């Protein structure tokens, strides 16, 4: 029934989306790459500098350190999301009484805007009146209030904790949906073949969940690698450079120092890092068809 004419009709359907994406994403991306070759204030000054910023970036270790810091941050956040998210998804998939209540509660952090989560935790970590210090002092774990976000050693860990809190529900939801799409009769069959609860998990659940896990892993890694808002609210990249992840660094380079060309060059490099991570994951765990 699909004649060759219907092919053209298909194009009409996707045309609005294609045009929008070309104008609003492809063009700005190319334009961003273009900006990266100029020393510019985006208005009057446009001095062509070629690859100067790329050479700059690679000739000292500063940017590399930011990337490593960001990878370090992303690694712990994603590990946290997967341990908590997978565990909870498996439990929420069991037929326990009152499970819906828990499901709703556990999704809450994901529903709070990032700014709200940032502010809320900034308040919890407040050195003077914060709940966190009050509880720890009450339990006798610390003697004096700690400035969690104002301290190079603790700020990085604090930011990771907040990011795990905010992001685990997303992983949990995606994996839960994946679990629920495994048909019940597969388990019946496995049981007849002599599978116990743990072998069924190993030979039925895990393989069936694998595609969902890979996609979730890629998305989660990339999302948190480029995360900006909560860290900006919590620490603005400080103290020192303790939480100065790349997106914050690029933002400051552009809108605090008005170094738009250099910021654009950094953004291009971050894109390649993100793309490489996605590519790497797919090569590692890919199911071959994509």
């Amino acid at each position: 029934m699909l004649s060759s004419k219907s092919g053209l009709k298909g194009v009409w359907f996707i045309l609005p989306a294609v045009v929008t994406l070309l104008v609003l994403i492809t063009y700005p991306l190319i334009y961003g790459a273009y900006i990266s070759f100029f020393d510019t204030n985006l208005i009057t000054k446009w001095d062509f500098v070629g690859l100067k910023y790329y050479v700059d970036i690679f000739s000292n270790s500063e940017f590399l350190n930011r990337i490593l810091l960001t990878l370090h941050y992303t690694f712990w956040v994603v590990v946290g999301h997967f341990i908590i998210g997978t565990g909870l998804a498996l439990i929420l998939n069991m037929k326990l009484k009152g499970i819906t209540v828990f499901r709703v509660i556990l999704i809450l952090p994901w529903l709070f805007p990032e700014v709200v989560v940032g502010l809320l935790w900034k308040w919890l970590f407040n050195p003077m009146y914060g709940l966190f210090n009050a509880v720890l002092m009450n339990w006798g774990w610390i003697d004096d209030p700690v400035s969690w976000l104002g301290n190079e050693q603790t700020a990085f860990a604090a930011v990771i904790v907040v990011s795990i809190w905010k992001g685990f529900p997303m992983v949990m939801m995606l994996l839960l949906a994946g679990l629920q799409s495994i048909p019940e009769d597969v388990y019946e069959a496995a049981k007849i073949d002599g599978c116990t609860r743990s072998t069924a998990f190993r030979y039925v659940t895990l393989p069936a969940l694998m595609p969902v896990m890979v996609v979730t892993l890629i998305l989660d890694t990339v999302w948190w690698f480029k995360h900006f808002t909560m860290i900006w609210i919590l620490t603005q990249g400080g103290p020192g450079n303790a939480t100065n992840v790349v997106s914050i660094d690029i933002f400051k380079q552009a809108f605090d120092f008005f170094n738009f060309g250099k910021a654009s060059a950094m953004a291009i490099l971050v894109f390649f890092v993100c793309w490489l991570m996605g590519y790497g994951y797919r090569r590692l765990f890919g199911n071959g068809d994509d």
Partner: protein
Amino acid sequence: METTKRKFSIFNTGMYAILIVASCLVLIPTLWMVSTALKSNEEVMITPPKWIPDNPTFESFTRIWKDYPFLDYFLNSVFIVAVSTFITIAFAALAGYGASRFKFRGKGTFLSFLLVTQMFPSIMLLIPFYKVLKTFGLIDSHWGLIVVYIAFALPMCTWMMLGFFQGIPRELDEAAMIDGCSQIRTFVQIILPLSLPGIAATAIYSFLMGWNEYMFAFILVTTETMKTLPVGIGQLNGFYKVVWNDMMAASIISSLPLIVLFLFMQKYFISSLTAGAVKQ
């Protein structure tokens, strides 16, 4: 039989214990937000802090509307998010339908491009958008932000709609066409009504994106009364004096629409999200 039953209930108890601990870790910060919002200015600054305020008051909730341009922030966000969600859904539904029903050259490229957009950091777009919108006089305008939010939500929304349309049998289209419906009429009159749950889910996604977005709104809008909710709340985090109870009240109010929306739609939302993200 007896022993397996007992083992089973110990297992269940363990599971409940994990769920309760996890729920507490979620609820304690959340309840602390509520508790703070209900405190008076003096009571916020008491050490050690109290869980239940001595004189719970709704002062913060009324003050944010009176002392800050909170109503402006709220209405700005509603307007921007409503318009961008509407346009995003229209385009995403058309594209999702087109990609689910037709074969055409470049379809694979189109679909992979949608995924690639999830890969790059949005900060890459911030600088070019800033320049382009400046050129067109759209800085400090709601339309500038609407355009940005459409660009952000469209790729994922198209994937979600595609997944949804693929679940609707093609025989329906064919039957309608045999009855003499044009392609576009088939889409609007037969398929769209069936895909309302998918549209709802996609709309939530787009709504969440716009309602939460901070970085672009922070840079692209500078006039106080034009700002969106996240930026407005973010700047309550002021330099010299931080009024925590007001900030927590504002936080609660800005989170409520999302929570309410989600509670009504969660079933559709989760299944559509995975249909789009996972079943490729």
